């Protein structure tokens, strides 16, 4: 399908993302801001990576480019053998629709819209029958443990539940990669662990997850740590012993989630 838009297929099998000498320069008035100063990186299928760094380190810009929301100034970005560095707006929208699932810090759900309708949103932008769309969205909600809240509105859900709806929405298109930008930033510590637990479960099912976070605790759940500073990768290490969310939860004092509602 993507062949139709003429993107070149490059890279080797098993590698999901190949980034070479990525440079991003913004022009703020007359001042040039060098957000990324030459970043090279590869991500394989099934990885669970955390991107860390202080604000201004370039990690958000990097995230936007990986998420096909933004284009690099220089360098190449190959996603699933497709060079997406120079695609048009519409082509990028298509890639986002097919290959990328976003989870944001502020959940970014449509208000006054049910969990089901929020979850099925990406499917509205590809051709699919109404029945199949409902089916897929319900499945995704069940996968994140919200099978019984399908018709709830965001304002009837707790923060953790809202973030799960957002994760269901990210999952519904069966994307190649889930990108989460500070997914636990608005959540309390227990709910944060729960959300990271969902990412871990998804990762175990073979889904590639990249989480951007500035909290070292949260990054501990990932298998790989990539640290940004001043627009460059400062370190890129395998996490030898990732924390397991289900175990951490057992140690945490129990909070009755119903009380939050």
């Amino acid at each position, binding site marked *: 399908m993507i062949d139709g838009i003429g993107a070149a297929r490059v890279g080797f099998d098993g590698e999901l993302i190949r980034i070479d000498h990525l440079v991003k320069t913004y022009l703020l008035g007359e001042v040039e801001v060098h957000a990324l100063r030459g970043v090279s990186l590869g991500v394989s299928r099934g990885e669970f990576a955390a991107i860390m760094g202080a604000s201004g380190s370039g990690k958000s810009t990097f995230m*936007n480019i990986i*998420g096909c*929301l*933004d284009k690099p100034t220089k360098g190449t970005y190959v996603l699933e053998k497709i060079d997406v560095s120079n695609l048009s*707006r*519409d082509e990028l*929208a*298509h890639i*986002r*629709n*097919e290959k990328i699932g*976003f989870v*944001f810090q502020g959940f*970014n*759900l*449509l208000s*006054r*819209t049910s969990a089901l309708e929020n979850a099925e*949103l*990406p499917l*509205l*932008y*590809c*051709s699919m029958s*109404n029945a199949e769309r409902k089916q897929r969205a319900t499945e995704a909600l069940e996968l994140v443990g919200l099978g019984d809240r399908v018709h709830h509105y965001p304002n009837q859900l707790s923060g953790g539940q809202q973030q799960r709806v957002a994760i269901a*929405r990210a999952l519904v*298109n069966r994307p190649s990669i889930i990108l989460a930008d500070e997914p636990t930033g608005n959540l309390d510590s227990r709910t944060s662990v729960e959300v990271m637990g969902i990412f871990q479960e998804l990762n175990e099912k073979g889904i590639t997850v990249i989480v951007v976070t500035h909290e070292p605790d949260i990054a501990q759940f990932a298998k790989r740590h990539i640290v940004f500073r001043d627009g460059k990768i400062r370190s890129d290490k395998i996490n030898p012993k990732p924390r397991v969310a289900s175990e951490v939860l057992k140690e945490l004092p129990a909070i009755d989630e119903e009380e939050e509602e």
Partner: protein
Amino acid sequence: MKMLNILLSAFRALRRNKMRSFLTMLGIIIGVAAVIAMLAIGQGAEYSVQQQIDALGTNVLIVFPGSQQQGGLRSGAGTMTTLTEEDAATIQRECPAVAFVSPGTRSGGQVIAGNLNWGTGIEGCGADYLEIRKWGVDYGEYFTESDVKAATKVCLLGKTVSDALFPESSPVGQNVRIRNVPFKVIGVLAKKGQNAMGQDQDDIILAPYTTVLRRLSHYPYLRYIVVSATSPTNINAAQSQVSELLRMRHKLSSYDPDDFTIRNQADLAAAANATTQILTILLASIASVSLLVGGIGIMNIMLVSVTERTREIGIRMSVGARGRDILTQFLIEALVLSLLGGIVGIALGVGGSTAISTFAKWPTIITVFSIILSFGFSIAIGIFFGFYPARKAAQLNPIDALRYE
């Protein structure tokens, strides 16, 4: 994105701000209702003018004498003394396309009945005059050919004159004095109302033309001859036959201009219709201004809506909506607003027009054309005024839109 889904989400978005959506629609509702009501009133006026002209008889020709010319001075139509009773008789005899002929003359003056008096016009006419004018008699009867031949002093009163002179009793059989000549009233004419120019057609007395010529005006020539063609389609044939006959009778060579003028009511009808059409267009254009204002209201609200929903646009873009998906979504919302407004407006316009004709007794005609026109107009306005906000939404940068607070 499928059309049905877009429509559903447009309805949902509009339902979220019911009051605002309604007020926005109100602009279109009023505009469309105004256009329909104005067109209905205009066309009603056109119709009633047409009716009145038809009542005059579209198969009617009026022959006037030509204008008198002395040296360089031309005195205006009807000043020549060329039409005679004999002309009228010959037209009746020799023109096959002519059905009836009524010679006419005119006088006027104070009419006295008992202790009341009234100043009015006296029309002298032939026995077939009412036939030509499609006019009837309410009480009594019309004078006959023998009255015309004998120049008897009989007359018929128009409704207005009858009411003025005989407010309480029936005038039939009574005497009136017209400029001191006594006339016997033999009938009262049916009420005719105003003509297209607002003249009271019932403020009149009809008498045999011979009587008027000999007793009142003492003037041997006719002021006009009213001729009816056998049918409205024969009017041109009748006109040329009359014209030819009169030229012959007046011994005009082929170089001489006509010494008479023939006016037909078709010209008058066309002129009156043109006037009311202009009125209709004027009314409709004033009403369309309010439709335009309604459109601007839509644009305004859509712009607000785009700003308010910037984050929603960002979310939709991040999950794969293309610019054109966003464009369609907002365009459809604007279109739904203007379409719903249009439908309600049509209902209101039709209802309002009916109310006007029922309560104000003003004739209104609602045509399918006016409904289609205003409906089409409201669609066009939705697209036109919805496009700019929709394009603005579609061109948003997804990153900025997502961060918008």
